[in-house]
C-alpha cells in the first residue's frame, strides 16, 4: 500500500540531509511502528509523505498504491487517502471545528468526484464518531483545537481520521503529551479503524503506545535510515535496553 524506496530528503534552506535512504513497505491491513531516538528523522518522514514545505527530496520515491505521492500537493495526497495525525495539532482561531471537518470531508469527496455529504447526514455521522472518542458537542463547536488540552487535541485528530476514512494513516507521536487514560482512549479510536484495507504507520518514541495499538512490524530508525526491522518484540527490546544496544549492534 505505502511503498517508500530509498527516500532521501534534505532541508530546503540548509545543507542538511535528514533522510538518507529510507526503505519501507506498509501492506494494507497492517500496523507498522517506527521507533527511534530524537533526531532520527521520524517526524520528517511523516511531513515529507504528507507534503509539508521546507524539505527537498533529493532521491528515491514514495507511492500510495500506484500514486506517486511526491508529485502531489498536500490536499491531493489527502484525497488520495493519506492522513497524518499531527504531533502538534495546529490551533485555528475563528474556524469552528465542525466547519473545518465538513469542509475537509466535502473537499476530499469533491476531489474524488463523489457527492458532498449533506449537512444532516454529516451531523449524524460526526456525532456518532465523536461520541466514541468522548468528544462532546461543545468541543465540536469550538474553534479548531483552540483551548483544547493535549488529550483533546489528539482525540480531535483521531476524529478527523475517522471522518475522512483514509487508506493510509500516519500517526506522528500521537502519544506525546497524553496521560494513560487519554492514551487508551486514542488507542481505542485507532483500533476501531483497523481494517483489511487500511494501513497504519505509528511513529513513537516509547513502547507504551504499542501496548495499546499492537503493531505487526516494528522498525528502528536512526540517522535517517531504518536500521532494524522486526516483530513486536523489538519494541520491548527498546523499552528494556534503550536504543544504544540496537544502534551499537547495527553500526
Amino acid at each position: 500500500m505505502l511503498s517508500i524506496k530509498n527516500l532521501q530528503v534534505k532541508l530546503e534552506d540548509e545543507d542538511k540531509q535528514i533522510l538518507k535512504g529510507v526503505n519501507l513497505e506498509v501492506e494494507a491491513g497492517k500496523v507498522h511502528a517506527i521507533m527511534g531516538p530524537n533526531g532520527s528523522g521520524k517526524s520528517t518522514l511523516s511531513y515529507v509523505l504528507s507534503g509539508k514545505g521546507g524539505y527537498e527530496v533529493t532521491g528515491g520515491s514514495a507511492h500510495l498504491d500506484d500514486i506517486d505521492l511526491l508529485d502531489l500537493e498536500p490536499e491531493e495526497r489527502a484525497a488520495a487517502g493519506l492522513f497524518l495525525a499531527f504531533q502538534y495539532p495546529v490551533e485555528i482561531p475563528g474556524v469552528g471545528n465542525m466547519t473545518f471537518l465538513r469542509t475537509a470531508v466535502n473537499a476530499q469527496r469533491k476531489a474524488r468526484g463523489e457527492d458532498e455529504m449533506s449537512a444532516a447526514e454529516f451531523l449524524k455521522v460526526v456525532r456518532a464518531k465523536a461520541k466514541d472518542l468522548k468528544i462532546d458537542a461543545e468541543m465540536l463547536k469550538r474553534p479548531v483545537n483552540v483551548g483544547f488540552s493535549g488529550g483533546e487535541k489528539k482525540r480531535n485528530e483521531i476524529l478527523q481520521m475517522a471522518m475522512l476514512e483514509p487508506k493510509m494513516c500516519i500517526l506522528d507521536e500521537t502519544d506525546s503529551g497524553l496521560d494513560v487514560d487519554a492514551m487508551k482512549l486514542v488507542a481505542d479510536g485507532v483500533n476501531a479503524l483497523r481494517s483489511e484495507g487500511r494501513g497504519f504507520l505509528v511513529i513513537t518514541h516509547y513502547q507504551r503506545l504499542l501496548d495499546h495499538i499492537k503493531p505487526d512490524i516494528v522498525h528502528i530508525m536512526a540517522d535517517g535510515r531504518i536500521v532494524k526491522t522486526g516483530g513486536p518484540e523489538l519494541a520491548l527490546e527498546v523499552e528494556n535496553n534503550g536504543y544504544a544496544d540496537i544502534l551499537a549492534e547495527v553500526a
Partner: protein
Amino acid sequence: MADAVVKSDPTEALIASLAMPDATWAKPAREDALARVRTMGLPQRRDEYWKYTRPDTLTQIGAPKAAVLVTDEAPMFDAVDRLRIVFVDGVYDAEASDDLSLEGVTIERLAAASSDLHWATSVYGVLEARGQTPVARPLAAVNTAFATDGVLIHVTGKPNKPINLVYHHKSETSDAILHNCIKMDAGTEVTLLENGPAAARFNKVLEVEIADGAAFHHIRAQGRDHERRAATHIFSRLGAESEFHSFTMTVNGQLTRNDCVIELTGDDAIANVAGACVGDGDFHHDDTVFITHDAVNCRSRQVFKKVLRNGATGVFQGKILVKAGAQKTDGYQISQALLLDGDSQFLAKPELEIYADDVACSHGSTSGAIDEDALFYLRSRGVPEAEATNLLTLSFLAEAVEEIADEALREDMTVRLAAWLMRHRG
C-alpha cells in the same frame, strides 16, 4: 500674461465653493463650525493624524470621478425588517424611503427640520465641536457647516426595528455631505444600519448623544464601489451605564478615512468599536479612533482587522485617553493586518495616555502573512490551498465580525466577506 500669480488659500477656496443651507435653528452651529474650519484650516500632510493618509482628494474642490459599480448582489440588510431612509448621491429619495414614523423614535430630515427651537440644537455640531480637541478634525467641521441633509433621530423608547440609512451612488462626480444626529433618552435602545458608497466623494458625520442606561448599536457597510472616496466621523458621548457598539465593514474604496471619537462621561459605560476591511490594489483605508475615559469603571474595546493585497494600504491610529479620576478603566485595543502579499502595507499608531492609577489598558498591533502551519494543516486534510487561504482569512477577520451581537447580521457580513475573497482570489 500671468505676471501676478495670486496664491489662493485652499481653505477659503473650498469654503467659497460650498453653500451653507439656511435653517434657522442650525445656523449658529453652522456659523461656529465655519469659524472652526477657518481657524484650523484643511488637513495637511504635515498634520500628525494625516501622516499616513493623503488628504488632498478629500479637500479639493469637487469630487474626483468615481465609476458607479453595477452589481446584482442582494442589497445589504435585505433580510432585515427595517425602516429605510434612502439617499442617492446625498439627495433624499422619498420614493425609495419608508414612512418615517416608527414607535419609540421621531425621525426628521435635517433639510426639512425648520422648527426654531429644535431639540437637535443640543447635538448638531455640539459633539463634533467637543471632538475637535485635542485633535483637530477639520473635515467634520466642514461637514457641520455645509451638510445639505441627513437625519435627526430622537430616540424615546425601544423601536422594534432598526433604522437603515441607505446611501446609493449613481453619479460619477457626486460630492455628498450628510450629517446625522441621534439623541437617545435614558434607558432607550436603537439599532442604526448604514450601507452604500453614497457618492463619488462622501463626507459624513454621525453624532450620537447617549443618555444614562441607553444602548446604541451601529452596523455599517461602506459599499463595494472601487473608486469612491469617503471621510466619515462618528462623535459620541456616553452617559452612565450606557452602551455604544459600532461595527464597520469596508470592501473596496479608493480612499476611506473613518474617524470615531468617543467620550465616556458616565460611570459603568461601555464603548465597543470594530472594523473589518478588505482591500485589493488601489485601496487605502484609515481607521482613526479616539476614546476618552472620563468616568469610573468604563470599558472600551477597539478591534480592527484588515486584509490587504496587491499594494493595498491600511492605516490604524487608535488612542485611549484615560483622564485623572477615571479609575477602574478597562481599555482594550487590537489592530491587525493580514498581508496577502509583499506589496501591501499596514501602518499602525496605537496610543495610550493614562492619568489614573487604577486602570487596565492593553493594546496590540500586528501585521503578518497567512500562518503556514495552519495552511498546511488544512491542506493535509484535503482542503485545497485557495479555499484554505480563504478560510484562514475569514478566521482572521472573525474577531472583528464577532463584535456584531446579532447573529444573522454577523453571518451576513461573513458571507459577503467570503464572497469578496472568492472574487479576489490569487
